[in-house]
């Protein structure tokens, strides 16, 4: 993270090079912002106004789209479903992966390196390869259209990467700290919960963020295993919403905007952890 006062680059503030840099950054930020601007202003327009005035600010702002979109309460229900599935699958994955990573990083046992390499190899296997057998399996044990099918599958898909990341991090815990814990008479589990986990907080935060983003955004598993409206996730719901109102662009944008609100809240509340956590795991 930035160390203030370390740089001496400020002096070239007005050179022609810095003007070019300003233009480049200004351009890329505009490209980043225009779709977001479009999303917000369009949600405040009526269909008629949208067709006449696609880019401008709404001349007659209306909240009608919001009341239409929220009328049947399904967006709220879908948001709740997404929250439950995300929370539980990330929780299961984090606990299970942390335990396994602890064994891989700090214990000696037969077959350790082979097992770890198998887990690592699984990181890049696309979920769609597993989806047909999994669907048949879930149909047979009657778990399709329950939260549990999605929770178990998401957890399973996230575990390989989670073990990889946490094992790398747990290895960096200094040997002396673990030894001192053993001298104090701590059990293995106690060394884990009292020493290693607190020291690895940045890695855990990263992992939870990356995984939660994955589940929240995921569509393939959600469309396949949570088909019933009562368990549908927000993102799958949004595609359905889009299909139903495909002629009413402002209403679609309103649904998309409402679907974005939870992410924005999480981001604003934890901006520091969000960016720092996301980056920390990779940069170390």
């Amino acid at each position, binding site marked *: 993270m930035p160390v203030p006062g370390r740089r001496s680059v400020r002096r070239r503030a007005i050179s022609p090079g*810095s003007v070019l*840099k*300003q233009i*480049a*950054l200004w351009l*890329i930020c505009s490209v*980043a*912002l225009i*779709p977001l601007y*479009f999303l917000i202003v369009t949600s405040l327009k009526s269909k008629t106004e949208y067709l006449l005035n696609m880019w401008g600010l709404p001349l007659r702002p209306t909240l009608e789209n919001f009341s239409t979109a929220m009328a049947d309460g399904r967006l709220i229900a879908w948001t709740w479903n997404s929250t439950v599935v995300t929370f539980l699958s990330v929780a*299961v994955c984090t606990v*299970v992966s942390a*335990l*396994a990573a602890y*064994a891989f990083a700090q*214990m000696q046992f037969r077959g*350790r390196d082979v097992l770890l390499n198998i887990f*690592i*190899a*699984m990181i*890049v*296997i*696309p979920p*769609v*390869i*597993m*989806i*047909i*057998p*999994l*669907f048949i*399996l879930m149909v047979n044990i009657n778990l399709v259209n329950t939260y549990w099918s999605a929770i178990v599958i998401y*957890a*399973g*898909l996230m*575990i390989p990467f989670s073990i990889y990341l946490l094992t790398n991090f747990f290895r960096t815990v200094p040997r002396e700290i673990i030894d001192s814990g053993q001298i104090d008479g*701590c059990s*293995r*589990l*106690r060394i884990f919960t009292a020493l290693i986990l607190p020291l690895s907080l940045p890695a855990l935060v990263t992992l939870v963020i990356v995984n939660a983003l994955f589940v929240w*955004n*995921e*569509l*393939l598993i959600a*469309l*396949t295993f949570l088909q019933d409206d009562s368990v549908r996730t927000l993102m799958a719901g*949004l*595609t359905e919403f*889009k299909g139903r109102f495909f002629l009413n662009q402002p209403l*679609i*944008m309103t649904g*998309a905007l409402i*679907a*974005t609100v939870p*992410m924005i809240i999480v981001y604003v509340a934890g901006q520091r952890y969000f*960016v720092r956590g*996301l*980056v920390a795991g*990779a*940069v170390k």
Partner: protein
Amino acid sequence: MTDPVNVIDSAARGLSYARRVRRGSVGAALTPYLYILPAVLIVGVVIVYPLVTIFQESTQTLSTGTSQYVGTANYDLVRTDPVFWQAVRDNATLLLAVPILVVLSLLFAVLLFERVRGWRIYRTLIFLPYIMAITVIGTVFGLLYEFDGPLNVALRGLHLNWLALDWLGNANLAIPSVMSVIIWRELGFGTILFLARLMSVREELFEAARLDGANWWQVQWHITVPQLRTVIEFFIIEIINMMSGVFNYIYVMTSGGPGFASQVLEFYIWQNAFAFRQGGIAAAAVLLLGVTVVFIFLQFRVRRGGAVADE
């Protein structure tokens, strides 16, 4: 203080004492396996079991109830399906986004690193697209790219009618349009990632290079890029992983169309299995698995290379 933490603490110590008494027995040797057991069980059900059964399913018809052994018939079906090859091509085309993303992210990370005035604001704005859900982004761009949608209205307003193309409706443009959206979203992540790594590079390295008379490009090529090597590799693996999840963009923006022009393997398999209910598509999944194995080897090579570079 007799707070609960202390009570738990001493209880744990008592427990560990009991455990140490048992040490040396079979129990202690089994402990590591108990720690990895839950992970093995879940991954066994979600990944290993499907990988094993997919081979069996790829040689059967999966029509309702009775399944029949059909040998390699399914593979022949997939192999001779032009849509399958279209999907392979589209996957390959989308990989073009990887070098573009790496170069652009590096460029903007370096610009921000040089403390251009207002860099903190730029940093926040560049990252904004990344916090948007992919489905939301796909929905927004789906509208923007409509033939009579906002982008083309703006282009026509600027008298650039020849540029007002049918971005998602033209078979040649659908995949590049989807790629532009992927780049739009991932650029923020790459930039922030590289910027964070740059900030931990020792300033003396840059100073020394400048004192030696290196120009801007030389500094980037000889200092920035080598210093960022491991992060760049991490980012590339992340992006390729993400590319296998490109289903989201396709499903929301083009539904594989127009016609079958914007397929990716993920969408092709899902659509045949669940929307068209065509049995035997498992064979395609097996073929995709074959490609994946190549990536697994690449990934291990990169990791080993990275480990050597760290030492």
